[in-house]
């Protein structure tokens, strides 16, 4: 089983390819991944699309050597918790030299291949991060 079907990627393409989340215009909270309900404002919330800059900071990171099915060919790969400058925190792969990674490092988003779906040969793309300014 792959980690994401074609319909899933198609449905989420705006956010997965362009870092478009949502913003509640009632309370100014921003969400990535996008939410369709503001947990604070409830029925009074009004959500619209919000474009993230893709710049942020590493809150924590790991280098995965034991991968799940579908990612075996890509080990070792780094994954971090990235606090985006606009506020939301997301999980993302971090490309480049993992030995240069550290908590607090500035990163920016890049568009990369995520993985190939072995059975159908579909190549999934998405947002990854790289250390900023190098």
């Amino acid at each position, binding site marked *: 089983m792959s*980690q994401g079907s074609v319909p899933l990627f198609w449905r989420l393409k705006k956010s997965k390819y362009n870092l478009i989340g949502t913003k509640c215009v009632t309370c100014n909270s921003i969400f990535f991944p996008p939410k369709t309900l503001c947990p604070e404002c409830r029925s009074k919330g009004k959500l619209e699309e919000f474009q993230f800059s893709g710049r942020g900071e590493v809150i924590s990171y790991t280098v995965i050597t034991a991968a799940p099915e*579908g990612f075996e060919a890509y080990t070792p790969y780094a994954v971090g918790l990235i606090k985006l400058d606009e506020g939301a925190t997301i999980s993302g792969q971090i490309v480049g030299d993992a030995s240069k990674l550290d908590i607090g490092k500035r990163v920016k988003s890049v568009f990369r291949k995520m993985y190939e779906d072995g059975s159908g040969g579909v190549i999934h793309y998405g947002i990854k991060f790289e250390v900023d300014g190098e």
Partner: protein
Amino acid sequence: MTQKRVAVIGAGYTKFDEHWDKSLRDLATEAGGKALADAKMEGKEIQALFVGNMSGGRFIGQEHLAALAVDQAGLTPIPATRCEGACASGALAFRKALLSIQAGEHDIVMAAGAEKMTDIKGEAAVAALMGAGDHEWESAIGLTFSGLYALIARAHMKQFGTTREQLAMVSVNNHKNGALNPLAQHPYTVSLEDVLTSTMISDPLRLLDCSPITDGSAAVVLASEEAVKKLGIENPVWILASGQASDTLALHDRKSFTEMAATKFAAKTAYTKAGLTPEKIDVAEVHDCFSINEILAIEDLGFCKKGEGGKFVEQGKIAIGGERPINTMGGLKSIGHPVGASGIRQIIDLTTQLRGRAGKLQVNGAKVGLAQNVGGSGATAVVNILGVE
């Protein structure tokens, strides 16, 4: 409102292992039989069955597991319900069984947990387990559970100075206990050096920081106070309180990456209901799916201040004979982690301690025990407190 008193009156689990020769149905029936034998029952006394199972569909292609279990146990037509909360499925089944008695619906019920994880290859099992995370935003970028807990571990190390050695000491403690548990999958001791030099899985977590992939089943029989009296049960273990809480499914949506808010909330609920403080807990079973999670549990259950869990472990306070013995039968790390069964297995190990039947692993004078079972990276947490008079 005073709640009905409910007791555990029978308990038993299978050997936790890679059971190539046994199916899920074999294991569940075996565990149920052990629990019934312990309660000195035939089975027809059971009025309802609750089954904890995380992912029968992905592990063995079988859903509708409560129906399978009640059928195999020969207990149709009693109601049978599956409870799923990832790795906390077992404790959820236990809690739902308790609530069904407190609601006045039943007097004697069974709560069981079962998982058969080794029929598929390791990478597929890792992917199946990741079903407990956020499929769209965590699994889809190649995250694993060891990866998620590694993110927590590194953040905890940075924020509080928790050391790599302190993490390893969790595994050393749990294996030391598990070495004397004949039902454990890995019943042997490991040294600090063994842990620190084991294969890297998700930096900084290594193989011996991680609970294994396991087949196994566990079951308990619960009874109302009236049923306990009627049956003449001599050694009931009373359920003093149960708490359950939730948090965001994805780790990245949490307010803090170094604590489990769901554990804190579930524990607060349970302590309040039981009228107890953390100091009154004589023995605890905590969810050591990864070494870092035992340190978080120690802190979030209130056994020490936030950030001091690593020191707590280093000072030997979690050892049998220490200030707060934890995972005295081996924990998930040494006993194994058949995900849907672990929450019930924790209750059974507490029951054994509180009945004074733990042999060489006995915590002297243990009267009150706590079990904490976590689903995913902390999205579900259940805390149960048990006690004897």
